[in-house]
């Protein structure tokens, strides 16, 4: 037993408690802390955020940062695969079950899920104190805010992942003097970075060993034309080049953000046209230079480029980190997509069918996750493409990431998928027909495309 006079001489009661009854005091303190933590957890509002795996790491990190600043709110991030997320959202929103509070939605499902999303403009008016003063809606790239955030004039989501497609190429091979010389000898022109698909065909042929014994890669380009939703957006990379050319605009008019390039300005199918045929012809033309284009999807094409099997790959913004980490930054070049890219944005919205306190908590989180600070940091840390102008202009961002110049160009010129509620159904029948055309099971003809357009009109009830 310690001497009590020693206990009192310096820090008085505190030391006495520690030494005299140290064990029991610490236990009591610990118990009190546990009780307080338990009480705090009971008092905290818990919200669940559903998201696609692409967004999950960034959202988890942001949730951690948010909870540090807002201990009264607990955020759980639940990633669901692309195939599972949309059906889950639709099922839950239709049944008004309210099993989650906020979610990321793919731009093309905007119309289908819009009925279950909170009107954020109204919410901002109702709770102006929840919006930070420097939270500037006008800082979002206008087209992105319009496309992924708005539906029929209402603000239903805040842009989170401004995804788009870029062309990744093997910089080391394109810059190799010997390779450049060989290319010049064969094609009587310099090996330049392609800006059209016609140029890509030539370069892809050069880098395919079957057509060039000395090619450093086995194939020229990795294409993903499987029978999944992938083929639906891949078509736009090719179609966009012709659809948005002056002649295409003259024939079909300017595409709007609700119906996208698949439609004419008067909202009829635009793909059953010369432009549609040209796009599919170009896709077929490139297939011999790609490993298994009809059997490869997102994961396979990333792997083909990563393993040095191909010289080029059209891919989303996310895989850049994989390429950089495997091949090295000096070997990976990035340019805007030849022809046109396609937008693949994701926005954060709030479930309309949850209690008000959870709506408020979810609102606070999605505001936090889309601030200028969050937009910059999620890009730098997780390669989640930025939705804000300030991020694209930030010198630190520009110095850190070589994708920024390509992104700036792409955001202005990219094509868009339809966002109408019927999109998933249209997508499925389209992919089936395109897949059959590319596999040679259906003729590549205007009549095939007209048959498809007829089905579209039936689904749209026109």
């Amino acid at each position: 037993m310690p001497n009590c006079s020693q206990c009192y001489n310096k820090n008085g009661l505190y030391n006495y408690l520690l030494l005299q009854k140290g064990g029991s005091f610490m236990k009591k303190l610990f118990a009190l802390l546990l009780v307080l933590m338990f009480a705090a957890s009971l008092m905290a509002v818990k919200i669940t955020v559903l998201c696609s795996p692409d967004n999950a790491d960034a959202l988890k990190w942001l949730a951690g940062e948010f909870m540090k600043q807002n201990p009264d709110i607990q955020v759980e991030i639940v990633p669901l695969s692309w195939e599972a997320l949309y059906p889950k959202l639709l099922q839950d929103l239709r049944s008004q079950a309210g099993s989650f509070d906020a979610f990321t939605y793919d731009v093309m499902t905007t119309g289908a899920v819009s009925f279950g999303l909170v009107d954020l403009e109204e919410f901002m008016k109702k709770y102006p104190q929840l919006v930070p003063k420097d939270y500037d809606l006008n800082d979002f790239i206008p087209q992105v805010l319009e496309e992924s955030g708005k539906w029929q004039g209402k603000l239903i989501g805040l842009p989170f992942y401004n995804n788009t497609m870029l062309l990744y190429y093997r910089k080391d091979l394109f810059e190799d003097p010997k390779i450049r010389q060989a290319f010049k000898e064969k094609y009587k022109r310099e090996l330049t970075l392609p800006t059209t698909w016609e140029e890509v065909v030539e370069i892809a042929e050069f880098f395919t060993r079957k057509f060039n014994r000395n090619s450093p890669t086995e194939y020229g380009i990795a294409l993903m034309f499987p029978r999944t939703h992938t083929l639906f957006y891949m078509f736009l990379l090719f179609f966009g080049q012709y659809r948005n050319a002056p002649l295409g605009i003259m024939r079909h008019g300017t595409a709007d953000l609700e119906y996208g390039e698949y439609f004419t300005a008067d909202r009829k199918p635009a793909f059953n046209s010369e432009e549609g045929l040209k796009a599919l012809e170009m896709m077929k033309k490139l297939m011999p230079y790609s490993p298994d284009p009809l059997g490869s999807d997102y994961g396979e094409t990333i792997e083909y480029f990563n393993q040095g099997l191909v010289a080029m790959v059209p891919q989303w913004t996310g895989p850049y980190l994989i390429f950089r980490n495997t091949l090295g930054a000096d070997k990976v070049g990035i340019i805007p997509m030849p022809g046109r890219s396609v937008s693949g944005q994701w926005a954060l919205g709030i479930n309309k069918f949850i209690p008000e306190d959870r709506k408020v908590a979810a609102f606070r989180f999605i505001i936090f996750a889309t601030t200028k600070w969050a937009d910059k940091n999620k890009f730098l840390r997780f390669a989640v493409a930025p939705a804000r102008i300030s991020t694209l202009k930030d010198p630190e961002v520009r110095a850190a990431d070589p994708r920024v110049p390509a992104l700036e160009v792409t955001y202005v010129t990219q094509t868009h998928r339809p966002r109408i509620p019927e999109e998933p159904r249209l997508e499925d029948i389209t992919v089936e027909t395109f897949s059959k055309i590319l596999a040679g099971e259906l003729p590549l003809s205007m009549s095939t495309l007209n048959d498809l357009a007829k089905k579209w009109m039936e689904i749209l009830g026109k």
Partner: protein
Amino acid sequence: MKQGGEEGASSPLVRMKKGNPVTPWLMVLPVLALFLGMTIYPFVFMIWSSFRDYDLSKTAETKFIGLKNYFEIFKDRTAIESVKFTLKLLSIAVPVEIALGVLIAFLVRGMRGEKIIRSSFLIPMMVPPAVSGVAWKMLYNYAFGPVNWFISLFGGPKISWLGDSAYAQLGIILIDIWQWTPFVFLMIYAGLQSIPQDLIDAARVDGASWGKVFLHVEFPLLRPLILVALVLRIIDCLKTFDIVFMTTWGGPGAATHTYSFYIYKVGISFGWNIGYASALSVLLLIISMILVNLVFRLVRMRQQLGFGGE
């Protein structure tokens, strides 16, 4: 304080023994509620919604449309193609699984290291179909997959297992055979263990060869088990979904759409057309019942014609 006898007389057990009609119902009520909620209600709902225009991607309201959803099936090209592929899968994979399962069971019986071989044969069946789908997708990979590497050892060309319609169908059939042959093997192997040894010994004493013992003693005794395995495999095969979901997503085109996968797409994946998906499901139920009845009828017919029986 009550007497022990009085207390006993009022206990639930004694009341039940005396014939209280409510107690047995209370006992089965949880199971009954579960059965009604989880089986009967969804079944009735499926029948009800199959007669209605019920598309969740448009509205949660429904409208009676009679048999329109059913007529639609016969005009739906993808539905017809999915029926075709499902029948192909059924007619190739199931007989191969039954034949291989029986053969392996006979070969494994009495073999050295029987226990280890028996256990290892069961592994494919224990792997969840979704996991095996992912594994086979990697095995079938055009550039880096072990299947193409193996073929290349014999000078064969690279095959687009998931990108070519014919090979994709073959690929799905092979996965099904790999996964479900062990199930047939397990049933037949268990049946073999239960055949009385004295019957086999008696046949051998009478001079029956190995083949004759199999044909005239073992096979007739195993026939009911083979029939059960066949029925279960037919029902299961009609429900093939996971491996298609994980490997080909029904492609290329509609080459590997199984009927169940198509129901999933209509009902969940691309639009929550609950009415049409229900009609497709009712049809699947009818097809399953017809096929299973057909198997039983064929067996009964064989018995009547004197081609064996139990």
